[in-house]
Each structure stands twice: as C-alpha cells, then as structure tokens.
C-alpha cells in the first residue's frame, strides 16, 4: 500500500519526502560509544528508526588459522528476529552473509591490520530495529565501536545511502522508500579525509545518467553523518577525561 502511494507521488510535485524530509536530508542520528562493559569496544547507532548495536572484541588470539602479516578481521551482521514488523527467522539469510562479507572487506582496508599480526579482530553488529539503510548504519556503528576499542584505524569510516525517486536523488533511504518498487539504492562507505570509497553497494539498477547525482547525494550524506560521529567521539572522550 505504502509503496503504491510513493509511486503515485510522482503526480504531486512536493519538495518533501514521505516522512517530511527534504531530498538531501539525513534522518536524525544518535550515536553512543561504550555501551557495553564486557566488550573491548562497543557503540549504539540510531538512524531514524534503524537501531544498531556494535561490539568489537580483539585483537585477540585467532581461533583457527592466523596470518603472520596482519590481523584477521571477522565481521558478523545480524538482523534480530524482532527488527521488522513481522517476526523473522534467523536461519539461512543470504543477505546477512553478504553484508557481513562486505563489512569485513570495508574494515579490513580501514583498520591498520598490519600492526597486529597473528591476531583476530571480531566485529559484531546486531540490528535490533530495521527501518532502511541498515548497511550504512552498520558501517557507522562498527566504525565507532572500533574507535571505542582503541584499534588504530585510518579515518572515521562513515557511510550513507542514497536513491533515486521521482527523478531526483535522495539521501538516506528509509524502509518505505526502500520497499517502493524499483527504487535504486546506492550505499557508499568512505574514508572522508582522503575521499576514498571503501564500499559502494547498489541494488535496484541505477541508470548511468543518474549515477553521478546519486553518488553525490550519498557522499553529501556521509559528510552530515561524519559531523555527528565526530562530535559523538569528542563528547565521549570528554566524558572519559572527566
């Protein structure tokens, strides 16, 4: 029903999206560092209604094979059973495996792994509420958790999604926009200082003509997200000092 309404919105040109945002606006973002005691690093990210808990364990001994050159990164992503409006089963979720692999690649290149040979770093992500842009929220949460754990990282990795609806690029897609038929979504995870893109994942088929605009929207979103992440980190350090 919702998706139908969204599509029809083509006939009414309004400057606002279905949730009242303007096309370039990111949802309200809350970040917390150090939310768990047992883990080496942890964080909580709430992006609109999407909520992610991240923990980092390590660097510690590997359980299996070790790499003499660098630390092994192990990322596990999971959507909780209650994360969406209908209860979901945990088993055999290929999408989760895919996201886990993507995250592993992102942080394998962002963390200075060569400093910790023969070790392993575990990053666990639990999406307790899913309302769109889960992957982007996870990158941000993991990035904060790694910083909380004090693991050296090249930069604050930040991510944001963007899509293309009604012939205009929109930043930070929510679940309704995601589910509307055929919305292309592009998620970019980047090292902001060097403007290096670590992850670029798209679904739904973006037309080449629009790719530039959508990418720009995602990168602009990354900047907004980064601003808040940096402030969170600074606040957290301030609290630790006090």
């Amino acid at each position: 029903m919702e998706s139908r309404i969204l599509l029809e919105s083509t006939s009414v040109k309004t400057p606002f999206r279905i949730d009242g945002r303007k096309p370039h606006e990111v949802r309200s973002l809350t970040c917390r560092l150090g939310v768990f005691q047992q883990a080496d690093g942890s964080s909580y990210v709430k992006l609109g209604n999407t909520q992610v808990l991240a923990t980092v364990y390590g660097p510690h001994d590997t359980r299996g094979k070790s790499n003499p050159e660098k630390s092994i990164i192990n990322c596990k992503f999971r959507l909780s059973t209650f994360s969406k409006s209908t209860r979901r089963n945990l088993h055999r979720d290929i999408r989760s495996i895919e996201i886990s692999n993507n995250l592993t690649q992102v942080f394998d290149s962002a963390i200075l792994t060569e400093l910790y040979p023969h070790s392993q770093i575990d990053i666990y992500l639990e999406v307790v509420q899913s309302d769109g842009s889960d992957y982007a929220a996870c990158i941000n949460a993991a990035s904060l958790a790694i910083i909380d754990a004090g693991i050296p990282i090249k930069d604050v990795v930040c991510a944001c999604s963007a899509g293309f609806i009604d012939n205009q690029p929109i930043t930070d897609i929510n679940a309704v926009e995601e589910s509307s038929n055929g919305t292309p979504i592009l998620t970019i995870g980047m090292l902001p200082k060097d403007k290096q893109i670590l992850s670029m994942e798209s679904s739904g088929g973006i037309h080449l003509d629009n790719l530039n605009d959508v990418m720009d929207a995602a990168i602009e979103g990354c900047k907004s997200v980064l601003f808040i992440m940096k402030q969170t980190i600074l606040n957290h350090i301030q609290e630790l000092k006090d």
Partner: protein
Amino acid sequence: MAELKLSEGEKCYLINGINDNFRIDGRSCWDRREIELENNLLPSCVGSALIRSVNCSVIAGVKMSLVSPDSGRPGKGKIEFFADISANADPLFEGRGGQEMTVELVRFFEDSFKDCSLLDCLTVVEGKQVWCLSIDILILEIGARASLYDLCSIAVKAALYDTRLPKVYFNPDIMDIEISEDPFDLMQLDVSKVPIFVTVTRIGNNYTIDPTQEEEASSIASLLFSVDNCGTLLHSKKLGHGSLHCYPIKELIPKISEVALELHNFIDDQCKSFTSR
C-alpha cells in the same frame, strides 16, 4: 565472560566473606545490584523492554499473530518463547553458540507460563481465534548465568507490561475479524500474574542472589524458581553440577517469596513511571 577461572585462594576469600554476609562488591547476601529498565525501545514490536544490570543486558520483544487455539484449551491464548545470545556478548556465541543455554531458558519460560492467567486475556473468539504472542529474548551481554535468568524474566514481564494489542472485533456478517480503525483502541494485558524468576546460589554454606561472575565461579550450584506476584512458587529447577542438601532449601522458601515480591513491585513501579511519562 562465560568462563572465569579463579584460584583457590580467591575462592576462599570470597566464600569467607559471604559467610560473614559481606560480598566482594560490598553487598550482603540478599542484596541485588542496581537494575535499569527501559520500555518501548523497539517501535516495531507490540511491546518491548531493555534491562541492564552492570554487565548483563537483555532485550525482550513481543510480536503478535492470530492463531487457532489448541483443541483442549479453546479459551486460552498462546505464548511462544525464543531466546538467543548475541555474538555481541562474546565471540563464543557467534553463529549458533550458546544454544544449550537458551534451550534451557526457553523450556523454563514455557513451563512457568503454561497455566498463567495471562493466557485467558488473549482470547479473540473462543475456540476459533486467539492471540499468539512470540516473545524474543535477545541477550546482549551476559554476566553470571544465575543472575541472567532473573533479568530475562524481568525483561519479559516488563515487555508484556508494555504490550498493546489492537482491539479486534468479530464481524458476524463476514464471519471474520476486523481491526479497529482507531489507533488508540488498544488492549493492555493484565500482567499481574506473570511470574518472575529468582535464582539462589549456594556459595559455601550460604545462599545468595544475583551473584557476580566471580561468585558464580566459586559456587556449588544454583536453584531457579519461578514465583508469581502472590509469592507462590510455580516451578523450579536446579542449575549447575554440584549437589545441594535438601534441608536448607525448605527454609529458603519464605525468603525467596519475599525477594520475588520485591522484584514484582520494582517492575510495577518502573513500568508505571514509564507509562505515566
């Protein structure tokens, strides 16, 4: 951490302290650590609660569905339990790790809720349709096992307290149910009879509640009880490998009721303050 190894000296120090009713963190034997409770954390659930006590955190989320009742129990709803330990708690629980622990927990919940009066208010059309509540318990941080069970039960009770079901009406014209158009036409559950769990742990010659991981490591065994709001013991189970002498257990019962009532009151107060906000 799940596994904690203590030296004999450490254990001895700990046990001697408990004999004097003085625990390593300064509590007496029947004191509980501070509990933080938060409701309505997960908007997509019909009810949810997050509970934390030092290094243990648990989220409970409730989902609803309409099912037909069991033939033998036409007027009773259903409650399903699922428990899962997030890898966030420890890399050990990655994948399906921790399953034996959650199976035990789920079994105990199922047994304790089997005859709960809560099931009576879940009837929609007697004999035809009832609510089935699916309660997911997600363990985010695991402290001592013995205190985890207590916290899980608090999380479940608080989540049920928070639960709002849409009012459903039976329309005889279409022989089917209809949902109220008014988003405020909701039903709150009567959770007064919902039991909570109290675990008592034998350390040395004494019983304590809410042990720390160190205390648990030096304990003999634990006893798990589910208790309703009148102080009645509904169900019990022994946890751990050691053996317990039967006599002191009988003496424990009144104390357990007392502790349980305190907890019931605590949840009521907390949840009320949340609803009134």
